[in-house]
C-alpha cells in the first residue's frame, strides 16, 4: 500500500534525517514508526503526504509515485493527525471536522452532516459540535483531531504522536478507543511515537529507527520482543521485554485449578476444613466477593460473618492477557490470581509459579523445562490447559493477524 524505495532525506546543513529507507507497509495495517528523537520517524511520516520531499528515492501509495499527484490533492486523500491536534481555534468543532469535505466541495450541509457522524464515531456528544476548541479538554481536542482526519473517509491515516500530549489515563482511553475504531475501519495507518509501550500496544508492525535515520528493525511486536535485531533494538525495547511479551499471550490458555473457593453462605467450619491459608468467598453466581484469611475466621457462623479482604483484581479468561493474570497473582492477598469467565464467575485460580510455568511453555521465554513441582493438576481446571496461542490479548482486543502481509526484516 505504502512503499518506500531507497528513500533518503538530507538537509542543506548536512544532517541526514532519513538514510536509504526501504519499507513496505501493508494495506489495512497499523504500522508504528518508533525511535529516539532525531531518528527520522516524523520525517518518514511526513514524506508520505509530501509535507517533506525526499532528497532521493521514491515513495509510492497504492502503486503510484506520490509525485504524480499535486500535493494538496494528494493530502486531501490522506488523513493527518498531529500531536497537539492543531485544531482551528476560529472554527466550531463541527466545522473543524468538516474541513476536508468542505475543501473537496461537498457543500456545507453534506459536509456538516458527515462531521456530525464522525463526532459520534469518535465518542463525542453532539452537544460538543457548536463549541470552540478552547472549550475542550486535551483528550477531547485529540478526538476532534482524529475525527477531522477521517473527514473524507481516506484509506490512509498519518498520525504523528497523536496521544503523547495528554495525561496517561486519557492516553490509555484514547488508545483503547482508537484500536476499537481501527477494528471497524481497517485504515492503513502510519503512526509515529517515541513510546515503545504505545508501539507494542497499537502496532501490527513496528519499524524501529535509530539516530541518523536508519531503519534498525521492521517486525511484528512479538518478534521485536522475542528477537531484537541488535543491541540498539534490545536496549530500546527495554529490560522488561520478557514481561511485555506476556501481553501477547491470551489468558484463556492458562491452566487454572479449582482452588479454595466457597459460597459466602458456607459455614466457617467448612472453610477451616479446607486446610488452606486463604478462602475465596463467591456469591450465588460464583462471582468473587473477597478473600477470607483462615486464621482470622470467626468461631462460628458463615463466611458472611468473616472479614473479606479485597481481591486486588481478577483477570478475564476471555479478554485479558497473561500479563494481567500474572499481575493479578502478584497483587492478590492470597498470592492466587482469580480467573473469571465472560459472566464474571470464578473459573479457577493459579499462583505466580503455576502461571509462569505455563507462560514459559507458551512463549519459549526460557530454556528451563516447564514441568517442575508446580505443574498444574490436569483436569482440575474449568479452563483449557492447552498452551496459549500467540494472538494479541490486550484489554479485550483480539488484534488482526500478526503474521502476514508485508512482514520480514527491514531492508
Amino acid at each position, binding site marked *: 500500500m505504502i512503499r518506500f524505495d531507497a528513500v533518503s532525506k538530507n538537509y542543506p546543513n548536512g544532517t541526514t534525517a532519513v538514510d536509504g529507507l526501504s519499507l513496505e507497509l501493508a494495506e489495512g495495517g497499523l504500522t508504528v514508526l518508533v525511535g529516539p528523537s532525531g531518528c527520522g520517524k516524523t520525517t518518514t511520516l511526513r514524506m508520505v*503526504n509530501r*509535507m517533506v520531499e525526499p532528497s532521493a528515492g521514491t515513495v509510492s501509495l497504492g502503486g503510484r509515485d506520490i509525485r504524480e499527484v499535486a*500535493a*494538496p*490533492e*494528494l*493530502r*486531501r*486523500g490522506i488523513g*493527518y493527525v*498531529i*500531536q*497537539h*491536534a*492543531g*485544531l*482551528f*481555534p*476560529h*472554527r*466550531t468543532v463541527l466545522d473543524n471536522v468538516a*474541513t*476536508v469535505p468542505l*475543501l473537496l466541495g461537498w457543500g456545507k450541509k453534506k459536509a456538516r452532516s458527515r462531521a456530525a457522524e464522525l463526532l459520534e464515531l469518535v465518542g463525542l456528544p453532539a452537544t460538543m459540535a457548536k463549541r*470552540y*476548541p*478552547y472549550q475542550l479538554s486535551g483528550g477531547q481536542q485529540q478526538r476532534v*483531531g482524529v475525527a*477531522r*482526519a477521517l*473527514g473524507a473517509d481516506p484509506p490512509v491515516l*498519518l498520525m504523528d504522536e497523536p496521544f503523547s500530549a495528554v495525561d496517561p489515563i486519557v492516553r490509555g482511553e484514547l488508545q483503547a478507543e482508537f484500536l476499537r475504531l481501527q477494528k471497524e475501519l481497517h485504515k492503513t495507518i502510519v503512526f509515529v511515537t517515541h513510546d515503545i509501550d504505545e508501539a507494542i500496544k497499537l502496532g501490527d508492525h513496528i519499524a524501529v529507527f535509530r539516530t541518523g535515520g536508519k531503519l534498525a528493525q521492521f517486525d511484528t511486536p512479538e518478534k521485536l520482543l522475542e528477537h531484537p535485531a541488535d543491541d540498539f533494538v534490545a536496549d530500546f525495547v527495554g529490560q522488561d521485554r520478557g514481561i511485555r511479551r506476556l501481553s501477547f499471550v491470551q489468558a484463556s490458555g492458562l491452566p487454572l485449578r479449582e482452588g479454595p473457593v466457597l459460597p459466602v453462605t458456607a459455614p466457617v467450619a467448612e472453610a477451616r476444613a479446607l486446610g488452606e491459608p486463604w478462602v475465596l468467598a463467591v456469591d450465588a453466581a460464583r462471582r468473587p466477593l473477597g478473600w477470607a484469611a483462615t486464621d482470622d475466621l470467626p468461631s462460628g457462623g458463615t463466611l458472611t460473618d468473616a472479614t473479606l479482604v479485597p481481591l486486588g483484581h481478577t483477570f478475564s479468561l476471555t479478554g485479558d492477557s497473561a500479563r494481567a493474570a500474572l499481575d493479578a497473582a502478584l497483587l492478590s492477598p492470597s498470592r492466587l490470581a482469580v480467573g473469571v469467565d465472560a459472566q464474571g464467575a470464578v473459573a479457577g485460580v493459579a499462583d505466580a509459579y503455576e502461571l509462569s510455568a505455563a507462560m514459559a511453555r507458551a512463549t519459549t521465554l526460557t530454556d528451563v523445562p516447564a514441568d517442575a513441582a508446580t505443574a498444574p493438576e490436569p483436569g482440575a481446571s474449568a479452563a483449557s490447559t492447552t498452551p496459549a496461542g500467540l494472538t494479541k490479548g490486550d484489554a479485550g482486543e483480539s488484534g488482526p493477524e500478526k503474521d502476514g502481509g508485508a512482514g520480514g526484516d527491514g531492508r
Partner: protein
Amino acid sequence: MNDLVNQIQLVGDWLTSSEQWHGDDGIPHRLAEHLTYSGLSLLCATVIGLAFGLLVGHTGRGAFAVATVANLARAIPTFGLVVLVVTLAGLSTAPVLVALVALAVPPILINTFEGVRGVDPDARDAAKGMGMTGWEVLLKVEVPMALPLILLGLRVAAIQVVATATVAAYPGLGGLGRYIVDGLSRNDYELVIGGSAVVVALALVVQAAFTALRRAVVSPGLRPAVTKP
C-alpha cells in the same frame, strides 16, 4: 474650575451658532474634507500594509525588512513630511495624503505581520497537511486567526490619521484643522477649542466603530485569547 466651565461654554456657543453649520467654513463641509483625506489615505495604507504584512507573515521571508521599514517610517515626523512634500510638489492634496499614508502604514503592516506570524504553527501545519493550498491556508486559517491583531492595527492607524489630518490646514488645505490653525493665528480660542472638540469626537466615533466591527467579524473562538480592546 471656572476656566473649564468657560471653555465648555465656549465650545457650546461655537457649536450651536448657525454659521458653523452652513457654507464652506461650516462643520459639515470641513468634516467631509477631513473624512476624504483620512479615508483616502487610510485606504492606501490598508492596501499597502495588508499586502506586505500578509505576504511576509505567510512566507516568513523579509520579516527583518518589515520591522526596519516600519520603524523608520514611524520615526518620520508627519509635519516635516508635509512641508517637505509641499516644497517639492507644490500645494495640493497629494502631500497631505502621502504624509498620512506614511503615518498609517506602520501600525497596519506590523500588526498584520505579527498576527499572521503568530498563528499556531500546529494549526498551519494541519491546514497544509489536510490539503489546503497556500491561498486557502492564508484566507481560511491565517487571516481569520490574525483578525484581532489586523483590526487593532487598522484601528490605531485610523485614529492616528483622523487626528493628524488636521495638519492639512498648515499648507492651506481644508479639513477640521482649518479651525485650529485659523483660530491659533487669530487668537480666537473659541475656534481652536471648538475645532479640537470635533476632532476628538470623530476619534471616539472611529474607536466605537472598530469595537463594533471586531465584535461582528472576529470568531467567538478567538476572543478569550485576545487582550482587551
